[in-house]
């Protein structure tokens, strides 16, 4: 399917008109489950190229943000089909930008990509208190808790959130992933999370692996 290549290309070119022209065409043809998966994968490959162009200084933050906007619009368009087809979601994620941090662009990109992969994402928003994470985890018992932060001082809030989950006896019941520009292997260890990434797509892959492994 040549058009999937074109879709990937259009996303990586940030060509909004082209992206939705192709998506509309593809959706009009009433794609099978498998084909929908391929469409989603094509979008995500586009996002990965955007990330690479960012790393090579061809794109800058403004382009990354617009790519996130494209991705979430694409998710909106695809959601009705994905939802009507899927018998079950593949897993549940509680997501939020941690206390003290008001940035949510990266978090929203991750959310969009996770949803297209079939995750049910409960987004708590920004500046989320540890207690709010704890309460939500108690309420819906997700497999995964995902936290975002871009302020270096907010890394402490990530640790506080993990500690709060521990205190509430919930730590062993969930996998925890952290993302955002300042997270590193070191901070991940200190915070006590299970995984970290600065690439949204990689984060989604990690979550998928966790789900597959927990079923196996």
């Amino acid at each position, binding site marked *: 399917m040549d058009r999937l290549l074109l879709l990937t290309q259009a996303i990586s070119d940030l060509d909004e008109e082209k992206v939705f022209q192709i998506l509309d065409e593809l959706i009009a043809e009433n794609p099978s489950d498998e084909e929908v998966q391929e469409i989603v994968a094509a979008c995500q490959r586009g996002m990965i190229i955007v990330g690479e162009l960012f790393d090579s200084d061809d794109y800058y933050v403004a382009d990354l943000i617009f790519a996130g*906007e494209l991705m979430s619009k694409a998710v909106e368009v695809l959601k009705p089909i994905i939802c009507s087809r899927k018998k079950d979601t593949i897993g549940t994620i509680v997501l939020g930008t941690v206390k003290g941090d008001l*940035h949510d662009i990266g978090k929203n990109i991750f959310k969009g990509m996770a949803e297209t992969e079939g995750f049910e994402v409960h987004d708590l928003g*920004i500046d989320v208190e540890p207690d709010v994470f704890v309460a939500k985890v108690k309420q819906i018992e997700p497999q995964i808790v995902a936290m975002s932060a871009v302020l270096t001082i907010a890394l402490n809030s990530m640790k506080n959130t993990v500690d709060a989950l521990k205190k509430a006896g919930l730590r062993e019941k969930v996998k925890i992933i952290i993302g955002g520009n300042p997270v590193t292997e070191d901070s991940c260890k200190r915070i006590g999370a299970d995984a970290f990434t600065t690439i949204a797509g990689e984060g989604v892959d990690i979550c998928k692996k966790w789900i597959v492994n927990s079923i196996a």
Partner: protein
Amino acid sequence: MTDVKALAQERQQMFVNVYRGKIPTRIPINSILSLEACIEYAGANQAEVLWDMTKAEPIFEKVNTDFPADTPAGGTRRYPSFYQILGSRPFVMSSEGVMQHPNVQGMEPEDYDDFIAAPYDTMIEKIYPRLYTELDTDPNTKALILAKAMRAHGDEFALLAQIGARMRAKFGFASIPSSATTAPFDFLADFLRSFTGICSDIRRYPDKVIAACEALTPILIKKGKLPVPSKIGVTSIPLHMGPYLRTKDFEKFYWPSLKKQVEVLTEMGINVSLFVEHDFMRFLDHLSELPENTILRFEYGDPKLVSEKLGSKFIISGFYPVMLLHTGTKEQCIDKAKELIDILAPGGRYIFNTDKGAMDMHGNITENLKAVIEFVREYGKYDNPDEPYDLSKDPMPPAEKIVAEIEANLNSKYYQTWEQYRANHPELEGRPQEVIAKKIKKLEDDMFNFIINLGS
């Protein structure tokens, strides 16, 4: 002459020389402590001081005594009082008492056409009620809320000015009028379309973004006017979004209106001081197009390259990593100051400053900053200073005329020039026009500055 007066005169001449591109007696040292850092240093409560700036005076005294830079410490334009009264969304006080800026969007894409036609009025009618929740109400309540907020705004700034005058008298600071404004694209991005919104707009409605920046430019030039007519003065403009754009988007959207703004302000006799935030190394050729003696305070980048490319035309500042003051040893801090001075000071177009203000006092900054100030004061003496630049020979710049033309073309039903006002008020015939004009103009301008301050 008292020591303080002599010091004030020395400093005044230092800055005059530097601003005119002449070698001063020594490198001027900017104060680098933010108001938050000053409050922390004095062990006071952040929220209490911000809510009651009379409490800031002893704090400034302490900081100016302990960290004797050539400019006074502290100062802010973000007071919780008027933001609170207005129900501000763009600026909120955090639980720690720090003023913070969340992502907000006061303007919808549909508003572009109105905005381009009449930016000032569209802000007042449509945008501010979205940014300031207490203005989203009936006209009477709104009028009263605005009156309270503007009163608070005026009081805060008047108080700060009084404290400033006392600090000048006590510590011998220079007296140079200053103002502040915003780059047109940043003004559109920051509170109106939001950081995220503008990133889509430049792709979806590129022409409207350009037109909106053009419509804003005269307004933001007027905002940068000095508070009093003067032959010398500085208008600060912080730069936000440029480095987040691709070079070709920067050239298309960000640069033209900013360049125009700096050029006109310079024509008005002002040294524009750009806080070149983040990394501008991609844009050195653009910066080089700006008028001579524009002050460029850099955050990151290569000082050597900047010195080579820009050092003989512009006044360079910044680059000194404030983090080093927090985390480094005294020796490291002094070495860094020496390194930067050796690169940037020759030729005289240099002001010592950090890459950004210190937001708090963590680590070793207290000792390190004292040591660095002492070092720069000695090491920064020039052995080949130019003659004191004589301002009295300079003609008075045509600032009033330029701004009057902008005002006449504001296309606003809320902003009236004196001539427009006069035409609508025949009852003033035969009254002392000159005195009345001054007062009416001042009130209109106070309102204008208040309104524009709320937008950035």
